[in-house]
């Protein structure tokens, strides 16, 4: 039964990674932008939630709701002012710009909030657990898992059943031709990055409620998120969810054998999946 328990814990951890990865996957699928600052933007969102909660006295969940439009605006501004200028055939400029941004955000947070670790106090629900017969699960991790599935469902609905989603898909397929149909790729990209940061804010809430965070932990989360995106397959949001769960379960089993092997096990799962399926588990498009 211990193995089943480990497996379920892994799924819950993986759901958090899937939330980190969903925004990344969306942006990557639409404009092939590898955002190396995504991890630090999640941490920035966590500090924003903390700041709003401290200033207003609201519960972090409510503070996160207030943070959503702010993060959307930040994404829109970043895309319009920065990323749109460097997108193109050459992958190096966007990579380096987001890398620079990552360093700026990380050290800016360090300057403003020091290296002390913080946590978002959600309330008594953090301690509650649910007996599901075979295994007992924490209520918060379970909510994280449900949220991850909901976010992917919602993004998929947006992608395949709305006019905006149609613009996303069309721009992803051919950014030149869509302009003939009256779609501006640049504003489509700006909305996409805004949505990605909205998802990042949701991820930040669950991250901050689950573990302590400090300004330096962004890059490691980014790495897990990227692993999830890549083994999930380019452009598939369900693939990204599956990828996150694979990394989470691998890490949980690694940690169960030896705590030092947690991260290593996740990385090895990533390498093994790519050796067997170079294009990921559920590749949607060619690239």
């Amino acid at each position, binding site marked *: 039964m211990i193995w089943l328990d480990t497996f379920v814990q892994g799924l819950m951890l993986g759901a958090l990674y899937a939330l980190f990865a969903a925004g990344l996957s969306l942006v990557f699928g639409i404009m092939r932008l590898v955002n190396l600052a995504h991890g630090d933007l999640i941490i920035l969102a966590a500090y924003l939630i903390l700041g709003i909660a401290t200033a207003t006295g609201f519960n972090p969940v409510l503070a996160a709701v207030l943070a959503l439009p702010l993060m959307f605006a930040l994404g829109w501004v970043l895309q319009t002012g920065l990323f749109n200028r460097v997108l193109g055939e050459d992958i*190096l400029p966007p990579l380096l710009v987001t890398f*620079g941004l990552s*360093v700026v955000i990380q050290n800016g947070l360090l*300057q403003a909030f020091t290296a002390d670790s913080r946590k978002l106090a959600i309330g008594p629900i953090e301690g509650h657990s649910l007996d599901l017969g075979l295994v007992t699960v924490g209520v918060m991790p379970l909510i994280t898992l449900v949220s991850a599935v909901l976010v992917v469902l919602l993004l998929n609905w947006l992608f395949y059943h709305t006019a905006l989603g149609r613009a996303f898909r069309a721009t992803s397929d051919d950014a030149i031709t869509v302009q003939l149909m009256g779609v501006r790729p640049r504003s489509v990209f700006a909305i996409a990055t805004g949505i990605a940061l909205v998802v990042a804010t949701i991820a930040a809430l669950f991250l901050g409620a689950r573990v302590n965070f400090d300004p330096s932990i962004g890059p490691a989360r980014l790495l897990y998120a990227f692993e999830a995106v890549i083994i999930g397959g380019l452009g598939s949001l369900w693939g990204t969810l599956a990828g996150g769960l694979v990394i989470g379960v691998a890490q949980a089993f690694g940690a169960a054998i030896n705590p030092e092997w947690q991260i290593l096990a996740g990385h090895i799962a990533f390498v093994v999946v790519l050796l067997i399926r170079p294009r990921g588990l559920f590749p949607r498009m060619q690239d």
Partner: protein
Amino acid sequence: MRNGITLFITLVALALLVCVPMLGSRAMVQDLFTVLCLLVLALNWNMLAGFAGLVSVGQQAFVGIGAYTMFAAVILWQVDPLIGVLLGGVTAMLLSIPAAFFSFRLNGAYFAIGTWVLADIARLAFGQWKALGGGTGTSLPKGTTKQMFGVDLVKDMLGVSSAAAADALLYWLALALVVIMLVASWLFLRSRMGLGLQAVRDNVQAARAVGVDPVRLKALVFLLAAFGTGLCGGLLFIQITRVTPDAAFSVIDWTAFVIFIVVIGGIGTLPGPVVGVVVFYILERALSDYGTLYLMALGLLGIVIMLFARRGLWGTFVQRTGLDVLPLSHAAPKPGATN
């Protein structure tokens, strides 16, 4: 004529750098040693990203492997640290073969992430090496550097303490590595293979059409860069004298800084990293007291360069003035000449 002047300036600068241990303080020698090592790393990364189109975020793997091999050579096999450095380079190159086998399946941005994951695997795996202290790392045995091959010679020559002689020796080795890297890169890029590499970078289809094999060339550069990076890692950690997985495989110290140096100086040019490392050194001197602000300034500078002067300081200078000190292009064939 212009080439003569360039050569003269280069030789004078080189002579000055060689004389630093005789004229400057020990702190200065140690400082410049680190700068020279960063330059070696930058020259290697520039070959990868600037010429072979392999944007790796995992070069810290080879710094760490070089460092750990050197430590293993000294502590476990009682070998001279300098031989350890050489072994470090060779080990890094050997381990780059499986790394290439995996990461070459990934393209562009995926390659960057893939190499980063591999480097993290290396960090975690070397942290399991209990004989070298596991996760907490280990130090070089006391006096190792003083007994290093060649230290006595330098000591007699300069008339200084063993410790200062060891610093001078390491400094000269780093300087030699820089010169070798620069000359070797120039010869390689001017060779048939280098020409093929630049052709691949500019247009893969066209290069293939004239018979260039992109994968073979890129794999060669990847292996050689791993060798150079591994050597540099071993050398660096003789001076640092203490190795931990987090320090030896630090993505910030051995890859992020190096990327900024190359980008600021001018990616895809040979003098670019040299210019970049000078700017980096000046910035560090001026701002290092401010810690986080210094890093933010570096990040901002990288962003600004990418937005407004994508070729970096050197590339922009060449574009504006037409003065190219180390031209890589070949002269066009003379009209009427037959092959």
